[in-house]
């Protein structure tokens, strides 16, 4: 890093980080913000020295899990990933990750950047740095107070894609019409992935959709098969636009209560052992497929990638299990209707009658508008729910949502403090039983913080 401004930004950011550590505080946002304030091109300046380039992972859902899978994959191939681990995926989070992994002279300890980028920040980040691969997982409605509408977001990302260097490889979800359309705007190579198992379709009826119209001619789309929300086998009867050919395709997906197996058909290998994905839910099989497609774009051998995925450990609040007082807490981060529906689809596939601890906050990172809970399909979950403890800044909105979904009053309990809510939820569960925690981002942080205080989990920034 020869640039004096970047060196100064580096030093200031590292000092900030050191100061925070000395005062016993975690988190990665502030040091990155300091570095970016001094040098807005800090990320590009530092990342240019990465031998294997930069991979950007964006989209509404699946960023954190997919990025973690990818980090494991590149590590298995002998590279050193630099990764914004804590789901801190704004520009400052990326800058923070770089500050953690380089020395005072700006020399990096890794050789490939593996960054998840908030989809609203993606157009700006694409204009700032030159990545090797860009993955877009899916685009759903999410925190409309921050991202605004899906169409508008897709247009902004498309405009940024149109300006990309043709040497950049795009990796796109063929099953998502909004995402697949981005491929038409890129002058370079595109790797498409998708699910081609005719037996796959979620248990959750798709009550909402953001992609009812063709991204090219705006006439209604037709779906032969829906996998999740608006992901599926789509085509436009009017203009003929259709799901692009999949370069990485799952011809068979077998879901079990704790994992899944995907049978791959790729253009390079006609047959392959099923890839084992040790984390439940169809949406996590999708995440694995996305990671495998990026591995292909990076020319990493499929057996290496498949083995790394088989040994994968889930991230903060992504179906993570925590043992507390002889009971299991299963933590599920929820933040938008599509993610919620996918998570409860996985939950219902596991069977049983879940006891819930549901927590709704409305801080910036959660989305200040809680309207999304009415787009989430609580009606499908309601008949299975044994009991629900409800907490958070907007607990009453959530309790009211459960009431309208048809859960009887005597099965819903509103509890105000995080610790009390955990106690009530655990107290209701039989020894050896499970409590499913559904929480928005800052509510999950608060609940995790309380569990950490009790010595059950590590603080998330130690992850």
């Amino acid at each position, binding site marked *: 890093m020869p640039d004096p401004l970047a060196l100064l930004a580096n030093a200031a950011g590292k000092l900030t980080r050191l100061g925070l550590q000395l005062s016993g505080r975690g988190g990665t946002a502030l040091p990155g913000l300091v570095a970016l304030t001094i040098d807005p091109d800090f990320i590009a300046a530092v990342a240019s020295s990465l031998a294997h380039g930069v991979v950007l992972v964006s989209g509404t859902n699946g960023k954190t899990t997919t990025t973690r899978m990818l980090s494991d994959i590149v590590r298995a191939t002998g590279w050193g990933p630099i990764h914004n681990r804590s789901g801190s995926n704004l520009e400052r989070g990326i800058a923070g990750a770089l500050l953690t992994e380089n020395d005072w002279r700006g020399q990096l300890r890794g050789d490939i950047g593996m960054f998840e980028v908030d989809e609203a920040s993606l157009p700006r980040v694409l204009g700032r740095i030159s990545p090797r691969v860009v993955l877009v997982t899916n685009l759903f409605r999410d925190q409309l107070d921050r991202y605004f509408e899906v169409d*508008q977001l897709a247009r902004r990302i498309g405009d940024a894609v149109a300006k990309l260097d043709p040497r950049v490889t795009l990796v796109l979800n063929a099953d998502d019409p909004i995402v697949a359309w981005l491929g038409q705007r890129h002058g370079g190579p595109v790797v498409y992935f998708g699910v081609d198992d005719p037996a796959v379709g979620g248990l959750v009826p798709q009550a909402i959709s953001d992609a*009812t119209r063709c991204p090219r001619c705006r006439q209604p789309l037709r779906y032969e098969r829906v996998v999740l929300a608006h992901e599926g086998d789509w085509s436009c009867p009017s203009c003929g636009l259709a799901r692009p050919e999949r370069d990485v395709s799952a011809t068979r997906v077998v879901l079990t209560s704790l994992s899944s197996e995907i049978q791959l058909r790729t253009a390079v290998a006609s047959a392959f052992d099923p890839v084992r994905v040790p984390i439940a839910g169809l949406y996590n099989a999708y995440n694995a497929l996305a990671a495998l497609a990026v591995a292909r774009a990076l020319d990493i051998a499929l057996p290496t990638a498949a083995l790394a995925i088989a040994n994968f450990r889930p991230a903060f609040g992504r179906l993570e299990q925590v043992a507390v007082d002889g009971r299991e807490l299963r933590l599920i981060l929820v933040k938008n209707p599509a993610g919620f529906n996918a998570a409860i689809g996985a939950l219902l596939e596991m069977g049983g009658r879940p006891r819930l601890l549901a927590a709704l906050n409305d801080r910036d990172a959660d989305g200040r508008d809680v309207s999304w809970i009415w787009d989430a399909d609580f009606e499908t979950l309601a008949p299975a729910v044994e009991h629900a403890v409800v907490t958070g800044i907007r607990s009453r909105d959530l309790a009211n949502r459960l009431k309208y979904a048809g859960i009887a009053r005597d099965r819903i309990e509103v509890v105000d403090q995080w610790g009390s809510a955990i106690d009530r939820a655990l107290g209701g569960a039989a020894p050896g039983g499970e409590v499913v925690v559904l929480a928005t981002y800052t509510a999950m942080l608060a609940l995790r913080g309380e569990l950490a205080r009790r010595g059950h989990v590590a603080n998330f920034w130690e992850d």
Partner: protein
Amino acid sequence: MDLRIAHLYPDLMSVYGDRGNVLALAQRARWRDIAVEVRAFTAGTAFDADWPDLWFFGGGQDQGQDIVGADLAGPNGDAVRASLANGAAALTICGGYQLLGHEYLPENAPAIPGLGVLDVRTRAGSLRFVGNLVAETPDGVLVGFENHSGRTYLGPNAKPLGTVVVGNGNNGEDKTEGAVQGKIVGTYSHGSCLPKNPWLADRLLAWALERRHGPQKLIPLDDREEKAASEQAAEVAKARA
């Protein structure tokens, strides 16, 4: 007794949890042993003006609003107008609210005509109003979340639904929020609106039932959860205002 709800363009005009309003209307009717049928009215299919007791018209993305605007400019717009003239009730939110007015005036483009059944006009604003919204009305507090750049101004035939306490409401200038004209209600309140504002839900239900079943006195419901949600949301809104 039965109730017919028409959900206008649910595929295009249903962002920000607008679906929750239909869920709330349907549940509050069912809890009173009133049978409910909800039908989707979509662009390009001929509307039956005789069928609906109540129209729900939510907010949409820009793309959706173009298609919807074109559909309403044809016979389907006439059907909605006829239905409203014959005693159907309507709840319209955000984009739907704007499209029921006389016109929407974009920044640098000709005016887009609306249905003209609400005496309001909307013009594009530069700053988007995004945040909690609390208004006082003669029948109770209206609590929700607004997210719009349109500025709506009321004519003499439309009465404001409420007076803004937190947020911007119709235009950020005159403290009015929403509009009521006959049995038509327009508002910028998402949230979803009706689950937290049960008084408004019940008023719409009574108006809707009246069309085919005569004047109705609705059985009161136990609204503890609704009121708790409204109070907590208003507290959060005021604390952050």
